[in-house]
């Protein structure tokens, strides 16, 4: 570690003291601390929209609203062929034709699939930034909003969802939960602590900054395709 930062303690104490004086709080804050800890432990939820019917159906509907596309597959071995079909079916203007490239990267969990058999050149490595196609899994998904939830980790390089022109995500229907609260509960239950990054992705990267005209592929993928497997 290099240079220490200038006296971070003094600014901290000054700000906290000003907060207390602004709130006219003096003396022991023990009761307030206990109340805060109790609130954290209670994990109270706000009002939630009712989600009728099947979570998968709702997920597919909402993912579509966010401009993701979804295809259902019977099992994992069908993934490479489905990816190839998806790429072939893309109708891109000549300026974007390079995006139809059959080369790309995937997360290690998909390394053993028969990519070559489907005419694809997929390497199981984290993306470096110039890959056209990124194939990932996801931790779970949220039916309410059609959202993919990706958690960071050694085997789940998060930028692979983001840097390639096309992001294809493989999702198991039994990992679809109703709302964001349920995704957080699942993370706490299965992982204990939150990972470095929770990336909640709902469709391709978009911007409306110029004349409020929506354009896809602002910085991240131009398209997100979800393969529901199982």
């Amino acid at each position, binding site marked *: 570690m290099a240079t220490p930062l200038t006296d971070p303690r003094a600014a901290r104490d000054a700000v906290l003291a000003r907060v207390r004086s602004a709130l006219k709080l003096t003396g022991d804050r023990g009761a307030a601390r206990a109340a805060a800890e109790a609130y954290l432990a209670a994990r109270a939820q706000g009002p939630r929209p009712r989600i009728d019917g099947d979570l998968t159906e709702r997920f597919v509907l909402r993912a579509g609203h966010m401009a993701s596309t979804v295809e259902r597959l019977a099992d994992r071995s069908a993934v490479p062929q489905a990816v190839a079909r998806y790429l072939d079916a893309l109708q891109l203007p000549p300026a974007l034709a390079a995006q139809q490239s059959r080369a790309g990267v995937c997360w290690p969990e998909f390394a053993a699939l028969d990519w070559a058999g489907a005419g694809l050149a997929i390497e199981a490595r984290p993306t470096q930034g110039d890959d056209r196609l990124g194939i990932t899994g996801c931790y779970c998904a949220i039916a309410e909003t059609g959202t993919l939830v990706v958690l960071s*980790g050694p085997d789940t390089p998060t930028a692979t969802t983001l840097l390639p022109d096309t992001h294809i995500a493989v999702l198991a229907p039994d990992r679809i939960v109703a709302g964001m609260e349920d995704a957080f509960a699942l993370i706490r239950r299965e992982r204990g602590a939150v990972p470095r990054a929770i990336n909640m992705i709902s469709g391709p990267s978009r911007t409306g900054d110029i004349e409020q005209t929506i354009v896809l592929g602002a910085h991240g993928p131009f398209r997100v395709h979800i393969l529901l497997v199982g």
Partner: protein
Amino acid sequence: MQVSSMKFKATAHVKLHDARLQENLAKLKPKFVNARRNSLSEVDDFEATRAAGKAIRDRALDNLDVWLEIFERNAAARGATVLFAENPADVNALVLEIAARHAVRKIVKVKSMVSEESALDHAIEAAGLQVVETDLGEYILQINDYEAPSHIVGPVLHKSKDEVADLFAKAHGTPRKTGVEELCREARQVLRQHYLTADMGVSGGNFFVAETGSVVLVTNEGNATLSTTLPKVHVAISGIEKIVPTLEDVATLMRLLPRSATGQSISNYVDIYTGPKGEGEHHGAEHMYFIVVDSGRTGILGSEVREALRCIRCGACMNHCPVYQNVGGHSYGWVYPGPIGSILTPMYVGLEQAQELPAASTLCNQCGVVCPVMIPLPDLQRKLREQAFSRGLRPWYERAALKAWSFVALRPGLYALATRIGVRVMKLVAGRDGRIHRLPIGAGWTDGRDLAAPAGRTFRELYRARGAR
């Protein structure tokens, strides 16, 4: 950022006659306003959700010291460094110190209003480092010599694509593009290189989560995700008021924020970052810093406009404001425009420098009705108007007029007489079409429109006549 809020009237006057701006502003209504309304029905009980959002923000503010301590403890436990900034200068100094510590040369930046308060980009450049804004709108402003943003969600709402096309051709040295899509693709290519070569990402923070010591970043472009995932250092800067207790609270607020901002049910990228990257991870920052900023927030916390600190920066209040819709964001003269800006600006830069802002409101309460965290914006504007009056900041003629009016209003007989004369004179002046085209002491009003003349008798006269019938 330079404050020019005292020039509100003059700037607003110019903006009202800016045809291009008026055309762009006219699109606000069909886009943002209608999209918001249509998205509300998806949440079964939007009003109950608003109430819950308000409660979450109030809970944090009521014991802010405790929540800040919990946030600090949990963030530190995950290996992040939590720093506090007392004022804008501290923010800039801390960012530069962190940059020096990690030998940073290039910084990619995610839109952050807090960093606009301290003009962080200028400080970074003055220190000889490179900074690139990555939000498309902010990038456009940056290459236009740091033009000021005019909206907190759509910073270049005031610009047409032709203006952007000229700017890109000049800044990138490329043939001029004409379509919005081509322009976006060109920006994508330029910015992609910066993401891949930057040493540090600087972001704001939509929320700081006390429970986990995390920052929540919300974007549609994905630029926050790239800026905080690829460089080796991530610095998240936000105000002390941005604390929320739990992840459940984030879930509730995320039902409100995107709907209120753009009418989306969810933003495309919602990221929650906690600490530096772990063992074996390929992507992610190796060093994570939080800068928690006061810069006048404790002043608001202890004031009668405390409720303004609940703000989650959705922009709905300005989208729905008849004044904003006509004069645009630049007239407000500082970082935050619209109704929320009319509270925050005077509180941060001093009422004497911005007293025109709370006055520039019809108090119609459209903003208060749409605010997702139920900030009573017109009430707060009224409180600041009172302060401006009682501190003697209003001009002498306004104070004299109010004094004269209160003298008369407290004497019912005199009031009846004065109004009886007044309405008759006005009717006479108006002539046949019943409209007054010029008021000698109210030219500010009649320059832009006619004043409908009174009917010739006062309300009390009419009422009495009606009762007699």
